[in-house]
């Protein structure tokens, strides 16, 4: 089976428009979260990480007609363009395109939208991205709740293992919309203050918007500095509840176990966990139980939601890209918003930026529908 690598990458967010700038901002402790009081989005004040449409349009106008593309399409195209340009790979029939999103252009359902309702179909979003760049293969759209972004890495790896493609470009993105805000608010899951994953005073999530893109490739030569090998991956359902996490962390526990097995390593070889950490009381507790059952209580762990908010279908890929940059820098970055442990099992939350030699990290995510995904990455020493 060919090896697979996560290679060139880009993050398009309000902490910067390339991965390096974004990681520098995290290093400095900067967060993209801000408080908003905008009744056109939510009747009450909320805290989120959002990208100014004006800035997106200003950037996009250099490469395309802003009136023909939605904000999300502009963000995804701008992000993916960086990765395609950097990788310099011709888009032939051996190159795949995978789009991961939960809600895509859901804002076109609003009566004030300038775009037709047909743009809400996710296959239309896929076609728009595919046609912009001239991909030879049809875009594959993955929509699997909040694990979509990291599951896309698994799916790309599997397509390469099946020798369908040599290279797969993944582009992911989701927006902060009235649709999403009202829904999470109806669950009483939103925090009006910056979120505090795993903290005893955590009260809920903040939403965020971002586009993130990466190249998954079987080509070992010409990998950029910081590239990682994908060692193992798994997705497991909780088989428990559609909107609440399992009390035993069953699906997360099983997915990490299965990913470790494929990677052929033990829990002790994981140097760092980039966890999901949404800062809802139940999610963070579930994760602590699962990591404790896995014997990973001492493994340094953070959640990046305090920097970006929860960016839904993009979060898994976004956080994976950030994780590989942490490995490159050999620094454990602090879990923003955390001060006192507020989960029933002891886990090792990173409180401040700490230098440490890093070789292997684990990325996990969990989402509605009871899905959980775990992927293990190893630094490529080239």
């Amino acid at each position, binding site marked *: 089976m060919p090896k697979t690598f996560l290679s060139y990458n880009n993050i398009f967010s309000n902490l910067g428009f390339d991965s390096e700038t974004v990681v520098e901002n995290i290093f400095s402790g900067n967060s993209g979260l801000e408080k908003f009081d905008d009744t056109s989005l939510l009747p009450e004040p909320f805290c989120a990480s959002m990208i100014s449409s004006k800035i997106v349009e200003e950037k996009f106008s250099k490469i395309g007609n802003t009136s023909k593309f939605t904000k999300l399409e502009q963000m995804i195209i701008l992000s993916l363009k960086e990765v395609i340009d950097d990788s310099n790979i011709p888009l032939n029939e051996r190159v795949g395109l995978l789009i991961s999103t939960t809600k895509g252009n859901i804002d076109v359902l609003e009566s004030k939208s300038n775009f037709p309702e047909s743009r809400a179909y996710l*296959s239309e979003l896929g076609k728009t991205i595919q046609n912009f760049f001239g991909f030879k293969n049809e875009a594959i759209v993955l929509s699997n709740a909040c694990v979509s972004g990291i599951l896309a890495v698994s799916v790309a790896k599997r397509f390469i293992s099946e020798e369908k493609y040599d290279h797969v470009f993944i582009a992911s993105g989701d927006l902060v919309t009235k649709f999403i805000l009202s829904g999470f608010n109806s669950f009483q899951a939103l925090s009006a203050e910056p979120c505090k994953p795993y903290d005893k005073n955590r009260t809920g999530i903040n939403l965020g918007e971002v586009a993130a893109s990466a190249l998954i490739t079987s080509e070992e030569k010409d990998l950029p500095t910081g590239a990682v090998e994908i060692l193992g991956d798994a997705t497991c*359902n909780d088989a428990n*509840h559609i909107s609440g996490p399992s009390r035993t962390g069953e699906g997360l526990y099983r997915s990490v176990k299965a990913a470790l097995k494929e990677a052929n390593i033990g829990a002790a070889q994981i140097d760092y966990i980039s966890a999901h950490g949404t800062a809802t009381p139940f999610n963070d507790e579930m994760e602590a139980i699962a990591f404790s059952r896995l014997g990973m209580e001492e493994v340094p762990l953070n959640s990046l939601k305090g920097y970006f908010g929860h960016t839904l279908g993009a979060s898994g890929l976004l956080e994976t890209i950030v994780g590989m940059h942490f490995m490159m820098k050999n620094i454990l970055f602090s879990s923003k918003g955390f001060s006192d442990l507020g989960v029933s099992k002891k886990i090792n939350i990173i409180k401040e930026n700490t230098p440490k030699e890093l070789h292997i990290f684990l990325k996990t995510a969990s989402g509605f529908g009871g899905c959980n995904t775990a992927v293990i990455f190893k630094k490529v020493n080239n």
Partner: protein
Amino acid sequence: MSEKFFIKNYCHIKNQTVSVNGKVIFNDVPITLGTEDFSTFIKNAYKFLKTDYSKFFKMDNLSKLAFLAAYLLLKSENLNEEENNIALVFSNKASSLDTDRKHEAAIENEAEYFPSPAVFVYTLPNICLGEISIKHRLYSENSFFIFDRFNAEHLQLYANSLLRSGKAQKTLCGWVDFDENSYDAFLYLVEKEGEIEHTTEEITRLYNTL
């Protein structure tokens, strides 16, 4: 890489008709046209199949459709009561748009602003995979893909990858789409033994059987 897999069983739910392996097992005479038709039809199909699962009635249309189609194939599988490793690889065109439109209608006007968590939770296509996993104790791989048409090649390739790598013992694959007045479900179970070879041509042929 030459290991072969087979389609053991398949089912369709469309045009007020439920069929398994090409044979009609339930048919409801349409009274009126429109989505009301679907709710009556799917309720009648549920009763006919003696499903006896009260959570069914709180599901949205897409989940009801997917749940019943999966039930048709999995009820005869003698599943373990504790756990089963059957991966779910589903796809459609309309994602969860039927329920998305309902949530949008509940937030569109300030005067009638009333979003409901019971509706919002179904604004993700993979929720139906969760419903099926809960019922049949599937702690397994699940993924939901969106295409503008039935894509046998993609489903075949992805199922093969899960089976060959040992990530799943069996895979339940197919298409479950619900959009405005139309619905279409086609699911099939892939495993190591069977008579119909798991090829793109066979999958396409079975999809077009009815």
